[in-house]
Every structure is written in C-alpha cells, then in structure tokens.
C-alpha cells in the first residue's frame, strides 16, 4: 500500500464521507446559440466516484471542462468547499484532469511530465523526486521514469497521465473518457485499477464516459446526462432497478418498454396485462429481460390476483450469450419482447412466458427531449 497523502492528513473519504465537496448550481452553457447544458445542478460528495454518463453531444465533456476551468459558464455557479470555483482561473483550481488523449508533454520525459505540476506550484526541490517516484509507483510506471513519452504505449501514457494528475493531490480528479482509446482487455484491467486507486487515495473522481457498463462497474453514483439535462442521478443499482425515465431504462442495461393503459388497477399493453400499483390512464413501464421467465405450467392460468403476468409469443430470434441467452419473442401486433433466459437450450415456435407484476417499473417519459 502506498499512501500518497501526508501522514498527518486523514484521508478525506473516512473523515467526511457524505459532505458535499463540489456543488454545481443551475449551470447553463451555450456554444453560440446552441445550448449545451440547460440548467445542471449536481452535488458531489467528498471521496465519491461519480460518473457522468451520456451519449456524444449530451454535454458531459462540456460539464467537465467547466469544472476544470477550460470553459466559462453562461449562468449558474460552481462551488468547491465554500469557494466560488467558476471565478478562479484554471491554473489556480485544486482540480486536475486526465485528458481523453492523455495530453502528455512530448518534449519532456515521463519524470518531468509528472513533476510538471509540482514545479509549477513551486514545490520544494527536495520533495519533487520523492513525490514523483511515489506517483509513478502508484501507477506501476517507476521503471519508465526516464523514458520519452513517444516510446510508451497508449496504456502506459494513460498511467503517466494519471500519475501526473494525482501527484498534485487535487481535491477533485476529472477523467474525460480516459479509457476509450484502450482495447477491451486493457480497458477492463484499467477499470479495476482505477477503482482501487480511487479507494486508496480517497480523492473525489468525476469520470466522464459514454459506456454504461463502465459507468456501472466503477461508480458510487451515476449522473445520466441527456441533451444538456440531467435525466437521473443515482447509484448504479438504483438507476438500474428503478430507472426514473424511459430513456434511463433504455440507456442503462437492456429493457422492454411497455406502453400501457391502466384501468381498474390493471395495466394492459397489447396482449399482456398485469396488476398496476395505482393510477389510471397511460403509463410507460420498464421490464428488464431477465425478469421474464418461461411459464412452468404451459398455458395454465396465471395467478388470479394479477401478481404474475403471463403472455404467449413466438420465438423469432435467439442469441447465445454464454451463461444466458437473449431471446426475442414476437407477441403479435408487431411488438417484440426481449427475454433473458439462463441456459434455455434451443427454443423454437410458441412459448408461454411470465413475470412478476412488481418487476414492471413505471417510468416517466423524460425531460431531455
């Protein structure tokens, strides 16, 4: 274990786990007339691993650049620990960035790249070698200290970029799709390392990605951004289990969106009906493919109280996925339901399926349209 902090300073994560460190308040940003962020408010806790997830063009990188100080906001405020961050110029902010393309200085050695921030802040001459060595050890790059960056692979440059940022002990580390240029295996490995590194140093990470799996795997919380608005901010399990909107349900994991009509406590979508908790009129439900199973009794009647819904459909596509298969079921009326089944064998023709009514989660249409 390497402790990058001074021995006297307690790790932020343990001392102030739920205290808000960064506060983003009603931030609006336009490029010319085009609105990129349309009123973002977000609290980031100290020591948190927060992921900003969104499609390209959703404004996630812009939000990160506003926090880093590379862009100026049009309205709103950003605060960090009682200090108005958006009025401070980038080089005075206690925030460091790991860039998407690494942005390693090509004319400096790995050592000098990592030492850059320390020299800029006039660290004492004696502590620079020690801290650089520590940072390089942390990312397992000690042996490359004297190497020229051009001789490093993408993954190695990535590590140098991390060390270069972390050596400054920022209060917030911003990561702009840092893993998107790496191949799949290296990417998984770096994900795991990033996560353990974050726990180790206890620094708040704000991580931008368009990859929902990456977001789920790494984050304490996910902020889902859509067209400049926050769709949902919640821990991965919550956002998966209880998506707030149809968009969130579709973007994070796979789902079936059922547009249902509710009458007398029963929701009906096409040929499928189930017991609805409350309300009347139109509603959208999200039903995860893995919540649906083959009905054991074949055509036998479902539970009379509607707590288990049954439907019949023709298997029109089945893709093998190792532990589970994804089966597409044609239920007539050109509606297709996706079902994830553990080791079903090869399915053909018509089958009966069922799901628990509680697993169908009502969702809103969403704001970011």
């Amino acid at each position, binding site marked *: 274990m390497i402790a990058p902090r001074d021995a006297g300073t307690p790790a932020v994560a343990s001392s102030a786990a739920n205290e808000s460190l960064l506060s983003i308040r009603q931030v609006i940003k336009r490029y010319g007339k085009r609105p990129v962020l349309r009123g973002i408010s977000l609290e980031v806790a100290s020591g948190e691993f927060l992921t900003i997830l969104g499609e390209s063009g959703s404004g996630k990188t812009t939000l990160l650049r506003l926090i880093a*100080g*590379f862009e100026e906001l049009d309205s709103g405020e950003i605060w960090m620990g009682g200090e108005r961050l958006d009025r401070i110029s980038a*080089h005075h902010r206690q925030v460091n960035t790991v860039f998407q393309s690494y*942005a390693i200085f090509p*004319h400096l050695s790995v050592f000098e790249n990592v030492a850059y*921030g320390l020299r*800029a802040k006039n660290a004492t001459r004696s502590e620079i070698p020690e801290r650089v060595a520590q940072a390089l050890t942390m990312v397992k790059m000690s042996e490359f200290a004297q190497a020229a960056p051009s001789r490093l692979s993408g993954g190695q440059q990535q590590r140098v970029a991390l060390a270069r*940022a972390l050596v400054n002990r920022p209060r917030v580390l911003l990561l702009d799709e840092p893993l998107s240029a790496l191949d799949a295996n290296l990417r998984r490995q770096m994900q795991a390392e990033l996560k353990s590194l974050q726990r180790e140093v206890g620094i708040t990470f704000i991580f931008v990605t368009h990859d929902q799996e990456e977001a789920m795997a790494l984050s304490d919380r996910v902020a889902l951004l859509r067209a400049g608005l926050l769709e949902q901010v919640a821990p991965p399990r919550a956002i998966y289990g209880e998506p707030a909107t149809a968009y969130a349900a579709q973007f994070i994991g796979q789902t079936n969106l059922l547009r249902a009509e509710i009458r007398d406590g029963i929701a009906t979508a096409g040929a499928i009906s189930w017991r609805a908790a409350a309300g009347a009129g139109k509603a959208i439900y999200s039903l995860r493919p893995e919540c649906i199973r083959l009905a054991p009794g074949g055509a036998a009647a479902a539970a009379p109280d509607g707590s288990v819904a049954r439907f019949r459909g023709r298997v029109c596509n089945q893709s093998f996925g190792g532990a589970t298969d994804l089966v597409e079921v044609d239920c007539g009326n050109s509606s297709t339901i996706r079902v994830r089944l553990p080791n079903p064998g090869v399915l053909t023709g018509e089958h009966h399926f069922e799901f628990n009514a509680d697993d169908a989660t009502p969702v809103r249409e969403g704001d970011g349209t």
Partner: protein
Amino acid sequence: MYSRAYKAGVTIPPLLWVTLFLLIPYAILFCYSFWSVSSLQVIVHTWTFQNYVQLMRNPIYLQVLFRSMRIAGAVTLCALLLGYPLAYYLSFHAAKRKDLLYQLVIIPLWASYLVRGYAWKTILGSDGVLNGLLQYLHITHRPVEFLLYSPFAVIITLTHIYTPFALLPIYASLEHIPRNLVEASHDLGASPWSTFRRVILPLSLPGLLAGATFAFVLTLGDFLAPLLVGGPSGIMISNIVVSLFGAAYNWPLGAAISFCMMLLVVTLLFATERLEKRLTVS
C-alpha cells in the same frame, strides 16, 4: 506498386531540372573560381588558387562578409522579435480575425521587392516622410542623415521584407501544438507565462529555427536593399559579387566569393537541419 515508366516519369524531370539549372551552373562557377583574368581583361583558363588567396589577403572582402553577417544577424533578430509575437497571437488568440490577419501578413509578399525598397527610400530619406515627421514634431531641427544610406536602413528594409518568411514557419509550428497540451499545463497549475515558457516555446523551437534560417540566409545573399538604401557603409558581400561580375569584369574572383558564400550557407543549413531534427519531438 508503381510501374517503371511511372517512376521514371516522376523522377527524371526534377533530376533533369536540378542538373541543368543547378548542378551544371555551380560546376561552371566552381571552375571559374580557379581561373584568372589577364591584364587585357581576358579570362585565362589555367588553374590557380590565386582568387582564394586574394580573398583571404585583402581585408576588404572579409570585412564586408562580416558586416553582411552582422546585418543578417540583426535582421534575423528583428524578424523573430516581430514575427514570433504576431505568429503567437495569430495562432492562439486571433480567433475570428485569424484569416484576415494571416492574409495581411501574406499580401506584402505579393508587392514587388523594388517597390518596397523604394518605399523605404522615401520614408528614410533626408527629405523623406520620417524626417518630415520628426521636424514637424520639433524632435529634430534638421534632417537626420543616418536614417538613409546606412546599415541601419538596410536592416530596417530587410526586416520588413523578410519578417513574413520568418513568421510563416513559426506560425506553422505553433499551429501544430495540440491545444490540450496548453490546457494540461494550465490544469497542472502553470500560469499562462509559465505555460508559454515550458510548453509552447520549446515545442515551437523547430519553427523558430526554420524562420531564423530563412531570414538569415535570405538577408546574407541580398544585394538590392544595400543598393537602394545602403550607401557606401551599407555595402554587403553580394554587392561585391555583382560588381565583380559586372563593372570590374573579374568573374573568377566573383565566382570564388560566391562559392565561399555558398559553402557558408550550405553549412549553416546543414547545421540547423540537424538541430531542428533534435528539437523536433514526435
């Protein structure tokens, strides 16, 4: 794979061009530098080192050569001091005005050299624009003489003419600096000045060197500006070559000087290219 005919087609014309218009004339020049002129102004085709010896013995040639190098150095310095800030502004801060300003830098290159030379003559002359202004403002009471027909005038004129040549490679190298390196530097706590000193300047050194080489070499070989605004004290080495090939009718000595200058320039180009390669980081 390209066919033989295609390869020959693209290789032979430039080779022919270089041979006909560069190598052969240089070879002839080289030969001339070992011949001599008789008292009857006839070129004697016997081999001799006499021209080179004369070059070294007669102090006037080396004096003028050193003066030329001093002028070239001064012009290079001025061109860089003017060109670098402008190139920096164009590349990093001009934003919407970039294209317009870039054109404004280029357009003077289209004006005839002679026109620009004469323009400086009318500006710097004793009844010129500058002296008129100085007297109008009562800064001086009679025309300042040293403005025209002096090395000073040559330096000003050549700086004006060759600054764009120094600016363009600097601008190109600044444009090549990835902007996220600048952001990374700010992000790591470096002030704008420190970012310039530690990131932008080192990464633009190859362009700076190329620009300096352009300004120096072009100035060193210039003979029109000294002719127009230089006067006796502003004579440069090329003027001597011109007069040796013209009025003095001493082609062999002119050829010897030309050859020495060429050697000097080639050495310089070779050295800067080596240095540029070392400074360029992939």
